[in-house]
């Protein structure tokens, strides 16, 4: 934390507001157009709505896209996947980072490869089909865990590098078990990393269109990311409803980010490693 002189603080505050304002304009456009009529929104302007269609638009989106149902489907797969992801990835990253063996080096290569590899519908579909996992929550969760495994593990590896080995060694001398070493000593220190990983994984799964589209989709079981297409037509889109849909779908992610931010920043006092 760098302390600033008073006048510098004011300038800094001003700059912060300026940057926020600049970044916020497109966000404003999305929100304000979600309040307009179809014709008004098609103009895509920043002006205030001529007619405030707030309730009407949001109600229509909630109903037409069956948002509550989609919300439930999305929540189940997202939460389920993230719990498994965080535990498996943090543990895997820990071993890869701490142990320098041929196995861990190959695993790390595999992880990098995994971030780059594109997922392929047809082979994955045949696999899931042969396992009877198509159109099951279980199947989608397994795909999410494996699909985000590389990215999340890679993220954890870089954060675990920042935790000194001396800590492990001290705990080992106390005769701690190997699972306890990780989950009781290391994992709590990874709070900022875990908060980051949760946000990233949540965003990627919550907004993912591809996996539920091919592997969960039925008339009754679709997720939030698919609902935006209900308002986009063959030739044109209902932009007011598209934007209302975007606001609705993004909202939980924003709440999560605001909540998780505390853990990223509070590391300042609580989670930081004293050396």
């Amino acid at each position: 934390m760098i302390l600033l002189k008073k006048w510098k603080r004011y300038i800094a505050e001003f700059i912060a507001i300026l940057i926020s304002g600049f970044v916020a304009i497109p966000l404003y456009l999305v929100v304000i157009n979600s309040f307009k009529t179809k014709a008004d929104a098609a103009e895509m302007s920043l002006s205030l709505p001529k007619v405030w269609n707030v309730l009407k638009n949001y109600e229509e989106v909630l109903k037409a896209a069956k948002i509550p149902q989609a919300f439930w489907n999305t929540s189940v797969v997202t939460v389920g996947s993230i719990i498994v992801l965080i535990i498996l990835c943090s543990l895997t990253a820990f071993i890869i980072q701490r142990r320098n063996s041929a196995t861990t080096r190959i695993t790390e290569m595999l992880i990098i490869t995994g971030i780059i590899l594109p997922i392929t519908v047809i082979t994955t579909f045949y696999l899931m089909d042969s396992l009877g996992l198509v159109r099951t929550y279980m199947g989608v969760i397994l795909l999410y865990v494996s699909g985000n495994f590389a990215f999340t593990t890679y993220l954890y590896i870089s954060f675990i590098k920042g935790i000194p080995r001396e800590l492990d060694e001290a705990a080992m001398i106390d005769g701690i078990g190997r699972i306890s070493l990780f989950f009781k000593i290391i994992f709590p220190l990874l709070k900022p990393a875990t908060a980051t990983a949760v946000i990233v994984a949540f965003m990627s799964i919550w907004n993912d269109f591809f996996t539920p589209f091919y592997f969960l989709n039925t008339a009754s079981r679709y997720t939030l990311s698919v609902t935006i297409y209900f308002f986009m037509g063959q030739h044109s889109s209902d932009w007011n409803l598209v934007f209302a849909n975007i606001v609705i779908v993004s909202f939980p992610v924003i709440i999560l980010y605001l909540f998780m931010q505390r853990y990223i920043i509070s590391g300042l006092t609580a989670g930081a490693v004293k050396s």
Partner: protein
Amino acid sequence: MLNSSKKRKYSPLLLLASILIVAGCGNNNNAAPNNQTPQASNSTEQAPSEQPAEKITLKAIGHASWFKTGIDAVLKDAADKVGISLEIEKVPEGTDGDNLIKTKFATKDVPDLLFYYPDTNDNSGLGKLSDVFVPQDDQEWIANFDSSAWNYLTSDQHVYAAPYGGANIGVVLYNKQVFESLDLEIPTTMDEFWATADVIKDAGKIPVYLSGKDSWTLQLAPLQSGARPADADLLKKIEKNEAKLTDWKNKETGITFLKDIFEKGYTNKDVLSDTYDNAQQALTNGDAAMYFMATWVMNDIVTKFPDQVNDIGSFIMPFDGDASYATAFAPNAIFVPKGKNQEAAQKFINYFESVATQDVYFSNEGGIPTIKGVTKLTLTPAEIEAKAFSDAGKVFAGDPYKMKYAYDSNFPSYLQEVLVKDRRTPAQVMEGIQKDFEKNAKAKEDPNFK
């Protein structure tokens, strides 16, 4: 842990995986496998709900935006009259949705009813039509349908699809107020057109609006110029590689026309930035006088600019004077895939295509019916005028003409390049689509294209 009934359900690979997971953690506290539990319980909680099987529920699939007020009204009616209800899986518009449907057919996960494109053929990625779908030639509904006029729906001399929704006609939509205020008549020759455009331009208005940001809209002009019954033989030759698309001069006329109106300043300024939405606004508020589009745009105009609907009319672009045609766009299609529910699905089709049901559909949604005898229509003036061209035989299915291989997937972006200075000439557009056509033919290993 997974319970035993679950283990049996999933195949050995998963079993192996779970054994290894358990083994991997040995006797330590089983942090990882414990987290398998929420997954398992989640999937049991949400087992698909079984509908009581009193009436038949058919599984249908189609693009989300195809299911609007018309089909809603029909489905209410169908539940009462034939005891059939549809459970519709709605997929997004465009390639993603198409791919999902193709994946389902490839993995034999076939719906009871498929709502899909009318020009579907053996190369469309659903398999050979005769293997996959029930032919409709002998069904009762076809008596009320002129399959020669809507030959999109046929393949190998068979009809495999039934029409769904309204047909559309590609015309020049024009603002009658603008024409009246400038004392203009509908042009019937190209000379008259250019004179008309001059008057409009001098009055400070945009003669022809181009919405090149939505690149597909640029196709409407060449689609109209290429809508010529006389070209049918040429297209057959092109299919056999005995002629080239570069020989298709009528198509090229429309492209040259785009280039001319743009370069001579008869269009809006930012042709590549302006959208389909912008075009509707400019046409209805009178900033622009004309717009090449099909009648489907009237659905949007009705909801967005209800007060201006009656200002919009349509005419046929006189690319070739009296011998010009408007472009026919077939309605979308419903297919009956072969399967255990094919009889019930066929029953639904026969019900749906009956005049009574069509009346229900078209009194709740706009569009031009293709089933004869439908009387309850909700058409705008522009559509009524377009329908008159159709009734007078001045409408022809120009494009995508039922050709064996697609050639038009890059066509819209080539047209954009015509509107960027010195990027691509109309002749080069034709060369480009010929190249794409050959590529697709070769990919299918057509012996004529070796």
